[in-house]
């Protein structure tokens, strides 16, 4: 009734190749952006922004990165958190040496460092495939994690052993550090995520996206189509790690502000991001957002939601419960819909399109 494609004719191939060919989808997207950019900073409290929205956005970006590698190119990686860390530490060193350059430039530039590291650890994908490669990416995770602890130069020899985020400004307004307002930080984060999602969407809908998916679905046929496997895989590693790196820099500089950046780049973080794209949907950008929303919201819901509903729960129990619920949900989702929330969303839209008729 309100979601129909009838009467919307496409008169050019360009219109047919559009990412959102339906008017209703475009309106929906506009509403979401409006809420995110205007309503949330105005009406949502600091708590919601800091513990719900910001982790959701940061992990969405990381999940998009991993989805490009795993969902689109078919290469499983267990080292996402490591690549995120590279971005964060690269950004820290850059802004330490060049404090005059705007921090936003450095946050985006830090992606190039993680991309380079990603390519380096992607090189074994020339010789090894599948699960063997997944295990090989653990090498990246553990090695990078070790570097973050054992190389004091990376954290400027701080006694805390962690990144201490300096105050940096944009047009005179502080955007990082202790004095930056949470709404400002949120808007910066949101803009970065929207921009990079748009770029990722362009990429996966074009020539490179097809190239990645071809390698994922049938690498031999792709090669006989003229696609060079190593180049394709390394490009996927580079783009994926770029996204992870920027997400890592945003995580430390914009969301956490450095103070609690202890083990945010540990192996469990890599697993969580992998879960996000499984539950959200492999090979789907929308799915990356859905999965990130789900996994990043779950601890908060269990910790604050249950007591609010009158079910008393201790902090440690909530944490144990969190593990159990995540584990059970992963299995549940894989059984019900192996293609994740994104596929459920697609089915729902399809049903809505022909509603009230069954088919």
């Amino acid at each position, binding site marked *: 009734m309100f979601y129909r494609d009838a009467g919307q004719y496409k008169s050019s191939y360009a219109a047919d190749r559009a990412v959102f060919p339906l008017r209703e989808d475009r309106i929906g997207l506009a509403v979401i952006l409006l809420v995110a950019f205007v309503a949330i900073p105005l009406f949502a409290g600091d708590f919601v922004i800091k513990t719900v929205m910001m982790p959701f956005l940061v992990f969405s970006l990381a999940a998009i990165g991993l989805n490009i590698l795993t969902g689109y190119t078919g290469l499983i990686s267990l080292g996402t958190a490591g690549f995120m860390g590279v971005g964060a530490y690269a950004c820290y060193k850059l802004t330490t040496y060049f404090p005059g350059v705007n921090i936003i430039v450095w946050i985006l530039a830090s992606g190039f460092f993680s991309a380079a590291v990603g390519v380096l650890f992607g090189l074994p994908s020339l*010789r*090894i495939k599948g*699960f063997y490669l*997944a295990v090989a990416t653990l090498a990246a995770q553990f090695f990078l994690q070790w570097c973050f602890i054992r190389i004091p130069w990376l954290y400027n020899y701080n006694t805390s052993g962690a990144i201490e985020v300096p105050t940096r400004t944009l047009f005179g307004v502080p955007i990082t550090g202790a004095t930056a307002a949470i709404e400002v930080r949120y808007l910066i984060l949101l803009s970065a995520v929207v921009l990079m999602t748009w770029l990722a969407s362009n990429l996966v809908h074009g020539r490179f996206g097809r190239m990645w998916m071809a390698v994922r679905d049938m690498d031999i*046929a792709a090669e006989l189509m003229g696609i060079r496997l190593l180049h394709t895989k390394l490009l996927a590693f580079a783009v994926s790690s770029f996204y992870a790196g920027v997400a890592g820099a945003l995580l430390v500089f914009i969301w956490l502000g450095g103070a609690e950046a202890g083990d945010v780049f540990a192996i469990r973080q890599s697993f969580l991001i992998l879960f996000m794209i499984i539950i959200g949907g492999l090979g789907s950008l929308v799915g990356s957002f859905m999965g990130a929303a789900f996994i990043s919201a779950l601890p908060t819901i269990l910790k604050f939601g249950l007591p609010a509903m009158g079910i008393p729960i201790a902090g440690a129990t909530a944490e144990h419960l969190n*593990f*159990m619920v995540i*584990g059970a949900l992963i*299995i549940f989702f894989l059984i019900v819909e*192996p293609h994740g929330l994104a596929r459920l969303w697609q089915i729902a839209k399809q049903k809505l399109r022909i509603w009230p008729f069954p088919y």
Partner: protein
Amino acid sequence: MDVLYKIFIEPFALMGSAPDLLVQTVWEGLVAGVLYALIALGFVLIFKASGVFNFAQGIMVVFAALTLVGLHEKGVPAWLAVILALVVMFGLALTIERVVLRPLVNQPDIILFMATFGITYFLIGFGESVFGGNPKVMIADELYLPRGVTDVEMLGGRVSFQHLDVAAAIIASVMIAALAVFFQYTRIGRALRAVADSHKAALSVGISLNQIWVIVWFTAGVVALVTGIMWGARSDVSFALEVIALKALPVLILGGFTSIPGAIVGGLIIGVGEKIGEFYWGGLLGGGIETWLAYFIALAFLLFRPQGLFGEKIIERI
């Protein structure tokens, strides 16, 4: 020059001048390697029979040990706790087959792989909810595991062997031999090998896949319990062992996912390589290189033999 000296000369000079230290390091490596090999072994069993890359094997080790110790803490005598732990592992195998494997049959490998992540997380949460998250001490004495040290004078020095480590090596060897016999000479073993070769063909001659899966996962559970006891006796029992349990993965890429001898030899290579690397070269890099060295050793091997140590050369067909 100084750095080159420290990398290429000094460690070897040390090995030569103090061979007893070298023997000690190798021995420690071998013991760690046996434990890695045991985790990898449980993994290989499952991969061979059901094609599932069981990420949860390491966690099953911790879970089994935790169940044993947890039950004993609650006042269950040690022998009964072992039996109950075995029952729990059987129940786990049954549940996994019923709840995870059966509904996911015929799904792509990656989906099953992800499902074992789910099992991993569930087991961590479940274990901590039931038995608490604090590290526990393995009931080594109650299980008649030997304590003490024998020092052997050799090579102009003294090498000490923990009795527990010797016991671990012996028990592991016995278990591996028993498994080999089981696979080679029993009816179930034959069925297992048939399933490993081809699910469809096995089905067509009347082998029940579901039954085989339960047996295999239970066998892996038994291996996990034994590994957990050995490991727990050397350190505490807690899910912090998870990261160490992941070390079984480089062992696997080294030995190949389907080769039991590969798992054993791979485990020993990784164990020894890691200890030697840490002891002789770790100081140069600031220590703690054990966390990643295993993966790099495995990767280095892979660059020359992509099919692993014991895998056959893969001929791709189209």
